[in-house]
């Protein structure tokens, strides 16, 4: 398994047990409410580096997990465990 997600309830579990949940980050420079809704729906920060992300543990405790992961290496740099 290339990626293990640290779940505070279940320990290190394979990513295939989880569903990815995006944390939308609409830039403050966008002020129009409609434009913010649009950006939130479609646009992605997609960073090459550490990002905050949420995972839902479908095949486990069925709770949400928040982690910081480096998208270049898949290394989990901090977690909520």
């Amino acid at each position, binding site marked *: *398994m*290339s*990626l293990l997600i640290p779940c505070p309830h279940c320990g290190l579990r*394979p*990513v*295939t047990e*989880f*569903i*990815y949940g995006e944390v939308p980050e609409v*830039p403050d420079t966008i002020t129009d409410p409609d434009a913010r809704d*649009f*950006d939130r729906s*479609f*646009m*992605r*920060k*997609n*960073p*090459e580096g550490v*990002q905050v*992300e949420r995972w839902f543990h479908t095949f486990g405790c069925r709770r949400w997990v928040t982690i910081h*992961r480096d*998208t*270049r*290496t*898949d290394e989990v740099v901090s977690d909520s465990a």
Partner: protein
Amino acid sequence: MNEFIEKKVELRWHEPKRSYDVVIIGGGGHGLATAYYLATRHGITNVAVIERSYIGGGNSGRNTTVIRSNYGVPEAVRFYQRSVELYQTLEQETDRWVMHKQKGLLWLAHTEAGLRAERARAEVNQAFGAKTYFVGPDEVKKICPHIDLSGAGVWPVLGGSYHVEGATARHDRVVWAFAEGAMRRGVHVHQRTAVTGLLKEGDRVVGVQTDQGPISAGAVVSAVGGHVTTLGAMAGLRLPIRTHPLQAYVTNHYDLSFDQIVASTALLFYVSQTARGEILLGAEIDRQPSYSYRSDHHLIQSCSHRAITLFPFLRNLRVLRQWTGVCDMSPDYSPIMGKTGVEGFYITTGWGTWGFKAIPAGGEQMAQLIATGETPELIAPFSLDRFAQDRTLADRGSAGTH
């Protein structure tokens, strides 16, 4: 392999100039094809293609080489059919053997819903110029004798669609053919040159900053795979792209008798045989957004498990090689091509898991856009502003796996 590059394909390298009419970022299939068609169709040869590694070293050399046009929405069928046709004449046009082989592609259905989807696919395809026909189980068995129609008792094959013009080609040879054709006409290709920024005058993009120095350009085209979000940000663009790894693997040699490409949306895998006799398998993208090229055992395990239900002979084979590419996934599983709203900056991205088959048409249409300044009708539906205009092209046909 080196012998092929050095003796047969003549790649001519040049020192970078300080200025070009067009600078294309990304020396993969799409970037080089755009340069090729700029040179051959529009006589624009003062062009540079900038590649941070080596040509064809990204997704152009990592895909599973399927060429097809059996998509689910009219705009996509028309576009990919153009690409299928350009591929059919590519060897003649470039005088290079890219190992293009028409194999026929079977897309299987295992449920009533699947049958409806494949019937709809065949209808849409025929209406917009692609040769795809609905077939029953008997015909499936006739086309592909290796298949176990019972699906190991779990995934029975109820029918499917047969895409006659489905084909494969050797991916790096396609890249080299376009590179050579473009270079012969005066296009410069600069490998090991990384773009570190964009040169701007006001809101207009007027060139690129590279680790070999600045290069000014009349037009800058992003044909980058995998890192387009970072490049877009340099131009001040936010893009609807998320980057996911996609893995594939090949087995050891098998008798050269598996002549088709077979895919199953329900089982999420596809299989074909390479010219070397390896059985090539691929499945869905990894679920985490990532730029990592790491492969994992889970994919081999789950994909093989699914493939063996339809092709029992696979159980006797061994996995030889596995690799990963990173795919730019758009929200509607369709590519994004055209103007960006930033003057002087064009983009071709969102090639997700369906970029290789689109190389000739993508290059041809982007070249026409850059040469004329007008967005060609064929790619107008794929513009970046379609998301803001509520004209998304949600295509379950491409959301298959390849």
